[in-house]
């Protein structure tokens, strides 16, 4: 590997951007491919599949075997709302490999006792989210049911290109939310990305079951599963 390629790879990783390094095993020829450039590649589908899976692998190529090294950032999960669902969701998301942060300005909800051992920020989202750093490798869920807290945070998550944006609330609640977001200037292409009602439709009833549905929906979005959209 050329030192210049290694330096570029480490720079991309430190900036939380996904990259592939393709090595032809026979010749040692090597290329760094940024996520945004995959579509221009000859074997874009195989490379895209490798990136979505997050797993490095040996693939057959035109010049024999090649090793596709997949470098994707550790996914974050940012939950707005220190509510009952979040208490179940946070440990599950950690187990699934997410770096989890819960944000809620309501100090009655955001207590260390309710969220022992978890990263909890008792601030308004507009104060807390910039430091957390929402990005393309972040899943976001708004769970407070309070538009004053949820709406701006949802807009920020859409603006940051979070790979998953979910919002708690019925279809009726969500319709009103869409009206408010439109009034705030969030365009329809972005708001169409919001998963609401939140979670895969598995008939979830309890907070823990809803947490499973939300986490499954986020994983589908991350991995390009059949429930992703």
């Amino acid at each position, binding site marked *: 590997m050329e*030192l210049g390629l*290694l330096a570029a790879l*480490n720079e991309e*990783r430190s900036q939380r951007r996904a990259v592939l390094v393709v090595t032809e095993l026979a010749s040692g020829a090597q290329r760094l491919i940024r996520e945004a450039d995959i579509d221009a590649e000859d074997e874009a589908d195989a490379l895209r599949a490798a990136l979505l899976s997050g797993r490095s692998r040996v693939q057959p190529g035109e010049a024999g075997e090649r*090793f596709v090294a997949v470098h994707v950032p550790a996914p974050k999960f940012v939950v707005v709302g220190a509510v009952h669902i979040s208490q179940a969701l946070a440990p599950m998301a950690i187990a699934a490999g997410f770096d989890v942060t819960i944000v809620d300005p309501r100090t009655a909800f955001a207590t260390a006792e309710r969220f022992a051992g978890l990263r909890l920020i008792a601030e308004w989202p507009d104060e807390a989210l910039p430091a957390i750093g929402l990005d393309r490798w972040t899943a976001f869920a708004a769970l407070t049911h309070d538009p004053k807290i949820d709406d701006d945070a949802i807009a920020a998550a859409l603006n940051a290109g979070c790979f998953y944006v979910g919002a708690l609330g019925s279809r009726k609640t969500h319709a009103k939310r869409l009206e408010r977001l439109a009034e705030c200037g969030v365009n329809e292409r972005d708001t169409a990305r919001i998963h609401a009602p939140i979670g895969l439709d598995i008939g979830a009833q309890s907070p823990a079951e809803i947490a499973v549905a939300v986490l499954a929906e986020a994983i589908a979005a991350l991995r390009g599963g059949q429930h992703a959209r």
Partner: protein
Amino acid sequence: MPKPTHDPKGDILAIAERWAGEGRDVALATVIETWGSAPRPVGSHLVIDAEGAFMGSVSGGCVEGAVVTEAVDVIAGGDPKVLEFGVADETAWEVGLSCGGRIRVYVEKLTRG
């Protein structure tokens, strides 16, 4: 300012860049395939210098010694190598994987322009 998600102190690719930046001759070993119960996943790295100093892990200790020896050769010769370790190998009883797994390791030198 986004925080780096990898720990620069323990990150093998960051260490490889730093060692090379210090003027050391460096090789990088990467697990590229595993079969059975291999101890370290695909993508695991070992960084090695010409003196045989190394950091990281490709097998949890079973074959590191052999990889380091090969890596020192790769640093001297320059051409990359694909190594394979497993219980089916002739050498398995010396440097095999006692878990019964099999791994392929790509060893390459870090080159300057």
